[in-house]
């Protein structure tokens, strides 16, 4: 297998085969909490991509120096630094979005996707593979967040990205903007992905 094919495979694994949310069931907390609308979901997704990239790059570069008993501490230190940078940047340049996302940006520190990729990929692979893995996993996470947020925002408010998309006669489903809407929609999405993969297999 050529190097390019291998990198493509790594990237697209994050999008579908190993999608962190829809296949690995990681990162469920932000998936349920920040998907009432597309804007916060996209901001969360981009923040996670930044943190994943930062963490994978640092861990990959230091992988030969990492001693087994301090590696988790090192991962946590790296992730916490990246999350704090993302949090400060949002507060400085997107204050409304920072307020809307509330505690969920700082909570990226405990997102299993980030530490999972540091352990499973970046600590064992070179820089290029780690970067591609971070981009693939981050894109897969962002895509899943945006799909769930799109369904919820359209049904809860009749809008998509704050733009009206439903006819005037549409009656908004308030429940879709609430946690119950997140659980039901995510359950249906997971079921759909399982059916598609069963058919493929």
């Amino acid at each position, binding site marked *: 297998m050529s190097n390019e094919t291998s990198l493509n495979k790594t990237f697209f694994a994050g999008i579908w085969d190993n999608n962190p949310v829809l296949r690995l069931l990681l990162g469920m907390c932000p998936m349920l909490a920040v998907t*009432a609308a597309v804007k916060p979901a996209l901001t969360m997704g981009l923040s996670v991509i930044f943190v994943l990239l930062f963490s994978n790059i640092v861990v990959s570069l*230091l992988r030969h*120096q*990492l*001693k087994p*008993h*301090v590696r988790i*501490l*090192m991962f946590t*230190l*790296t992730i916490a*630094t990246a999350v*704090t*940078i993302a949090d*400060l*940047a949002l*507060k*400085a*340049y997107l*204050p409304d979005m920072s*307020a809307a996302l*509330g*505690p969920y940006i700082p909570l990226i520190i405990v997102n299993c996707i980030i530490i999972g990729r540091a352990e499973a990929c970046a600590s064992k692979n070179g820089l290029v593979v780690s970067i591609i893995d971070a981009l693939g996993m981050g894109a897969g996470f962002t895509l899943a967040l945006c799909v769930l947020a799109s369904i919820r925002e359209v049904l809860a408010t009749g809008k998509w990205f704050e733009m009206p998309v439903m006819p005037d006669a549409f009656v908004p489903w*308030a429940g879709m*903007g*609430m946690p119950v809407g997140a659980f039901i929609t995510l359950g249906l999405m997971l079921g759909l992905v399982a059916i598609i993969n069963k058919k493929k297999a």
Partner: protein
Amino acid sequence: MSNSQPKNPILFFLQQSWLLMVSAILFGTLLASLNYAWSPKIKNNETNKFNALAGGLLTDATTFETALKSAPIDIGKGKTYDVQVKKALNRNGNLVGWAFVCEGSGFADKIKLVVGVDAAFEKMAGFGVLGSNETPGFGDKITIKPEDGGFFQPQFIGTPVAELTLSKIGNPEKIDSEIIAISGATVTSEAVVKTFNMFLLPIKEKMTEEGLLQ
């Protein structure tokens, strides 16, 4: 300790943890630098948000100046919340009211409010929500402004600065110390009323002590 480990425990500790210590110093420096660079902008954003919310409550105000830098308010369980009271001035520099930020525990998270009070500190000018994570469709109705059809916030416009009570039934249009709760969000409504009761009168007392009120 195995044979491969050096006899000097300090040397052994440094061998095992140098990377962690160096990284902590580097990352700490990076964060300190970014914080130093961005903190004026973050502070400016917070001030703008406060001014926008407080300006919406005290409509004659054009500027807000710090009047009381620190007023520690007892919020129970041995904790205090430090309030900064700002005076609202109109175009001619006359006092038109007071504004401050206070905080209470809501249903899901802390509720941060901006409160406006008239110049005599006798009547409220209303409140705005600086931050809350209350339940969408229920508790988050506290964030709906009067001009957007909210029924909870208008109850605090012209309300006397006194001990407030919460009631589940009543006429929300009647302006007095009885606040009518949001249906389905009693906990959030209680939290707002409790926050007002916790802060309003103690702040008035502190301002009187400081000679800011007659």
